[in-house]
């Protein structure tokens, strides 16, 4: 997948994956609200076009690093819904066998190097994976998803600069959803476009409408193609919005302006692609509804899988700290 114009199949698949993310996180949000799942869950609802548009350009052997708001990235790159829900439930069948939770899912087989609870920490790791891609000379790339808030962290600057100096095939995808936690992006940055940081990092930078999956697909496609050709990293800023609160659906700590929410919801990326697909007679409204229904069934099956899955064995507590397992307990 790396043509600029998506094929029909790609369009349909992008629609499906956006819906899958949406439905997944709507349910995950409810599960958290009802205290059915433990811990913290950060919802990707509203931002689906970013992960899906970018990952539609990636192969299974390309790498991504993800964030605390990572469900969308996993699903976009092909993650397994059952293992995801199982992980959110903390079950033994989950992606991390119950040890990571919502904020720390990874799937090495799909090149998903892992979600991260530390804001900005994915940048340096992405540079490292990018080094591997460069070393192998097989056209692999690495995508680093990060937030507008994360762009203030030194680690992102170090990673961007390093990737540019070493000419690594890394695409830094900034999901500018207007907020870092509860503070507006204007409290995090004096610049209006995070993409402008590319100037200082020494790489190409671009702003793209993150509510338009086709625009993201195209811009990501260009950046990824350049990286595959050995022409180095890119910073791609996707302007987007999260429909729910920083944590869960409504954390209750503060409210964003109603008109702001309305403005962005009017640009719902799924509705937007849906309309385009219907107009182009690719997927009728009815078929779209069917996809949503199918997805919901998938989700319910995944949740059922999670619920029925066993808890990790108590012995798991001290497993996988090291490889291979040490004979006894290490350091008491």
């Amino acid at each position: 997948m790396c043509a600029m114009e998506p094929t029909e199949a790609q369009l349909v698949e992008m629609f499906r994956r956006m819906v899958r993310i949406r439905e997944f996180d709507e349910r995950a949000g409810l599960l958290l609200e009802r205290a059915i799942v433990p811990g913290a869950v950060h919802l990707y609802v509203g931002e689906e076009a970013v992960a899906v548009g970018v990952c539609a350009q990636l192969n299974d052997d390309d790498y991504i690093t993800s964030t605390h708001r990572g469900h969308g990235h996993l699903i976009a790159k092909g993650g397994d819904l059952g293992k995801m829900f199982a992980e959110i439930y903390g079950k033994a069948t989950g992606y991390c066998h119950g040890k990571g939770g919502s904020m720390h899912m990874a799937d090495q087989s799909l090149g998903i190097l892992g979600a991260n609870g530390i804001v900005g920490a994915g940048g340096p790791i992405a540079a490292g994976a990018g080094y591997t891609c460069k070393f192998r000379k097989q056209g692999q790339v690495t995508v680093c998803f990060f937030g507008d808030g994360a762009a203030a962290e030194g680690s992102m600057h170090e990673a961007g600069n390093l990737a540019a100096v070493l000419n690594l095939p890394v695409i830094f995808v900034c999901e500018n959803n207007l907020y870092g936690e509860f503070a507006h992006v204007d409290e995090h940055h004096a610049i209006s476009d995070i993409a402008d940081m590319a100037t200082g990092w020494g790489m190409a930078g671009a702003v793209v409408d993150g509510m338009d999956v086709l625009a993201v697909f195209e811009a990501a496609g260009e950046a990824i193609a350049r990286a595959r050709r050995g022409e180095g990293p890119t910073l791609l800023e996707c302007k987007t919005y999260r429909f729910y609160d920083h944590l869960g659906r409504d954390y209750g700590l503060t409210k964003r302006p109603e008109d702001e929410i309305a403005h962005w919801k009017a640009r719902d990326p799924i509705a937007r692609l849906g309309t385009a697909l219907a107009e182009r007679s690719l997927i009728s409204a009815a078929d779209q509804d069917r996809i949503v229904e199918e997805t919901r069934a998938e989700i319910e099956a995944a949740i059922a899988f999670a619920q029925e899955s066993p808890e990790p064995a108590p012995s798991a507590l001290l497993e996988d700290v090291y490889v291979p397992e040490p004979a006894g307990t290490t350091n008491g």
Partner: protein
Amino acid sequence: MPEKLFSQGIVEAQAHEMRTDPTIFVAGEDIELGGVFATAKGLREEFGSRVFNTPIAEAAMTGLAIGAAATGMRPIVEIMFMDFMTVAMDQVVNQMAKMRYMFGGETRLPLVLITHAGAGHQNAAQHSQSLEAWFCHVPGLKVVWPSDPYDGKGLMIAAIRDDNPVIYITNKLALGTRADVPDDAYTVPIGKAAVKREGEDVTVVAVGAMVPEAIKAADAVAERGLSVEVVDPRTLSPLDTDTIVRSVRKTGRAIVAHEAVQFCGYGAEVAAQIAQHAFDALDAPVLRVGAPFSPVPFNPNLEKAWLPGAEEIIASIEQLIPTGARA
């Protein structure tokens, strides 16, 4: 005395000092909303721009405190989760802790870095650590960790008034507990341990969240007729060794408990000091209660198994004084 949230006492401490000292400011991520642990709740409303949000940049936030303190302010900066102190370690360790000494005593840094530690809320490996031992290993820093709302308020006032950089640690879960806290300003002195419960048979030195757990353990074994003394260092650095050693000399047995990983944890220092300075008075080896050698797991059952608490303290007491072994 009115009953208050632990977090509320910390708020009051800051507000009290801010009213009389205009050089105090409070900065942090989302601190204008009171901070995600509510330890600055309402301060923005009362103090306006003296309480302000920062970008997500822990090294710069810490440098903000250092540079401002070096030039005459008394900053209070929040590093939300203690795990995020890792991002600011150079500023804390190479700058904040060393400037005064390195510059020949000409600099003073009256600042407070407040941060929140501990597991038990299913936030997994990167949002649950207790890293106090690192900071205690660094000369030039003071480190306090109050275990109850009264000490919380009093130590915060003391930390603000101290002319040295103070790392003020809370246990996240404890912040939601309540106890009697006076309305007025008072200090709990930095550098003084507290005997939180008197006892004769064994001393438990407990840090932070392990203090209430030690008291629970003491209650439990009291039924067996055992009398446990619980000592809370409160200030981890500089450590009030005297109070601890005095207690152990009385009881002849000691357990050191903290939530952090046991290996190379703070308890190692306390245990080593007890074993050295109360050598002749010890009837049994000093035991330690701490977390096992793994990151904090997400799954609630595993996390519970990871977390040390009253149960482990009781087990250690049993090990020191087996049932039936006592007259």
